[in-house]
């Protein structure tokens, strides 16, 4: 079979092919979004320690000014997305569920889109540690959804003997409906390449590979054209398949390397970063600005003007939906993509740094889907779909009996990254991922106690 290799594009095994639904938004250029009357900036938008507020009630802030600082190494600062006055620091609803502390900013009507605060650095002469600190100062986190602080990702875990050889730039965007990364690659190509150069410097990797799904060939060509001949950067198209954008899958597809279970990509010498993150980094670093807005795909049933919008962080979803002309009553609103995103239970939830899309599904479609759950018929489709080679069927049956510890000890529950392939293919409609998320939450709680 070796002679066929040049003709077969490498990919990971298993996975699914959901309907992409990207047509509505993929061709629409990114548009700026107006400011809402009040911004809600949650202090715990990033993984790690929440940011520490440095503003007081009644204080005036300008667009781009830091309002909270990093409280630890695994933490990032927050910047005010608009000029206005701090209304207070209060408990506000989050997409995850519990109410957590957020800085409320009342936006001045005259607030401009111009950023009025920046700290410029001589980036070309900065040593690596200072470059990492500069990245932390921008408040950058993974914009793909995980919201993991970017500077932490680019720092090696202490005491590890790994050597990073490759920076994988994730432009797969395998989630249906979402087109933010696609548009960013087309419109911010220069920023992206600049960001990749900074990331290469920060990680000390020898090469960078930008992996893009082959349903976005225009982005592949645009990015390839922007690379200078002496850049150690290559662009590679990978087959469109879900979850191609999961870091372990993309590393398998691009480099043929297998990341061991429960290990970071760094253990095989790779750092993965999202194109949206690096494009934003390439934009912010030379300007010395902070992350105050992000690109979000807004689409779905009942939305008059679907598209990609550059939205100030902290914009309440209610305002966002009003502005794009959302009509209709009861609907399911998903924050992120349909496969791994979270349902919103309150329209007062604001846009956060890690939110890549807002998807509205109409109620009829949901009711039909959630209707009936049948017993497992052991068809093993979930086993064939699971990209982590787990056995969702057996785990699902254990979960129904609340045997959460056995799911871990016998079936490696923690390796599941909740991509949802198993639930997608299940002909019996068993909510497998939902079971696994409960089981993981319960095991985590037990481990804490």
């Amino acid at each position: 079979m070796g002679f066929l290799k040049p003709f077969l594009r490498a990919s990971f095994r298993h996975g699914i092919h959901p309907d992409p639904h990207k047509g509505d938004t993929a061709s629409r250029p990114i548009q700026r979004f107006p400011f809402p009357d009040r911004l809600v900036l949650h202090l715990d938008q990033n993984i790690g320690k929440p940011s520490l507020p440095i503003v007081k009630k009644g204080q005036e802030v300008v667009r781009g000014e830091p309002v909270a600082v990093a409280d630890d190494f695994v933490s990032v600062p927050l910047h005010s997305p608009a000029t206005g006055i701090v209304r207070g620091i209060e408990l506000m609803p989050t997409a995850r569920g519990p109410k957590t502390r957020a800085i409320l900013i009342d936006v001045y009507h005259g607030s401009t889109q111009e950023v009025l605060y920046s700290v410029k650095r001589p980036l070309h002469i900065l040593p690596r540690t200072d470059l990492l600190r500069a990245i932390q100062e921008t408040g950058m986190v993974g914009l793909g959804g995980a919201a993991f602080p970017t500077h932490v990702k680019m720092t090696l875990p202490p005491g590890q003997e790994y050597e990073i050889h490759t920076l994988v730039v994730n432009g797969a965007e395998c989630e249906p409906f979402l087109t933010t990364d696609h548009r960013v690659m087309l419109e911010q190509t220069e920023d992206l390449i600049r960001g990749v150069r900074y990331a290469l410097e920060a990680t000390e990797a020898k090469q960078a590979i930008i992996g893009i799904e082959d349903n976005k060939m225009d982005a592949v060509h645009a990015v390839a054209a922007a690379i200078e001949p002496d850049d150690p950067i290559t662009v590679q198209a990978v087959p469109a398949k879900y979850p191609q954008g999961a870091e372990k899958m993309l590393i398998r597809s691009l480099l043929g390397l297998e990341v061991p279970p429960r290990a970071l990509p760094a253990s095989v010498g790779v750092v993965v970063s999202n194109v949206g993150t690096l494009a934003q980094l390439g934009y912010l670093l030379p300007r010395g600005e902070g992350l105050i807005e992000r690109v979000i795909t807004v689409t779905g049933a009942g939305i008059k003007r679907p598209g990609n919008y550059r939205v100030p962080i902290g914009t309440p979803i209610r305002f966002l939906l009003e502005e794009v002309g959302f009509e209709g009553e009861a609907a399911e609103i998903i924050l992120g993509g349909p496969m791994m995103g979270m349902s919103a239970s309150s329209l007062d939830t604001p846009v956060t740094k890690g939110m890549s899309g807002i998807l509205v599904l109409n109620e009829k479609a949901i009711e039909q889907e959630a209707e009936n759950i049948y017993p497992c018929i052991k068809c093993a489709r979930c086993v064939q779909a699971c990209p982590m080679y787990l056995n969702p069927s057996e785990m699902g049956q254990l979960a129904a009996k609340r045997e959460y510890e056995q799911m871990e000890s016998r079936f490696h529950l923690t390796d599941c990254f909740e991509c949802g392939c198993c639930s997608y293919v299940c002909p019996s409609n068993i909510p497998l991922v939902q079971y696994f998320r409960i089981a993981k939450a319960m095991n985590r709680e037990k481990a804490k106690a």
Partner: protein
Amino acid sequence: MEQADSSLILYAVMFMSALGLVLAGALAIANRFLWVYEDPRIGEVEELLPATNCGACGTAGCHPFAEALIKGDVVPANCTVSSSEAREEIAGLLGVDAGDVEKVVARLACAGGNHVASNRSHYEGLDTCQAASIVAGGPKSCVWGCLGLADCEDVCDFDAITMDRNGLPVVSEDLCTACGDCVEVCPKNLFSLHPVSHKLWVACANLQNDELAESACEVACTACERCAVDSPDGLIKIENHLAVIDYSQNALASPVATERCPTGAIVWLDGKAGIRKGRESKRIIRKKSLPLS
């Protein structure tokens, strides 16, 4: 041919019998030399225990509890599930005092049934509280409140928890054995175990104050501090916009604390007489569920 067949069977029978005898001998010898003495009273005591293995006593199950009883580490009354007659019988058997341990029951720190607490969204999915709480904290406007999908009722081995018509679990003090299963299963951590003498109770876990709390649930603690002011010093404190009772000073507690509570979040649990709210608390006469807000 026939000759050979019958002898084959004969050999097989003889071999299996010999094997059986040898192994039986080995077992007999092992039984003699590896025998461990176990106090015969352990078996007798275990017979008298309820055999639910619920763990309410703090040991892993009824057998370890029986062992602890023989050692004298616990008293029969530590088994909250067995009847008082059974306890007396065990005490008589072991020649100890049955002991007097105050009855402990599970209590729910929420009174937000569907008739008083509003829902911000409609939940479709796996029909358990744990699943619903993972989806953005569940449909209730109050993210601290009871979701009412009856995980506690399902997990209770003693049928002590029933869901009332407003979707709120009601714990039967008689049936509750304080095994702690509901404490563990509730994703909002609303259950806790309390001696029945803890009669003053804050039936709310909402950490917001004033209108924010009351707009989510009509019986929420609004942190108005009236209960704290009316009670003896230090008995009730307001922590994170919620009244917290210091049960180390339980002797000072009286229904006075509940009298001026505007929402009726703090209550006096009077055993048989039921839940007593203060006279100034608003009356809840609505019986139907609130619409989606």
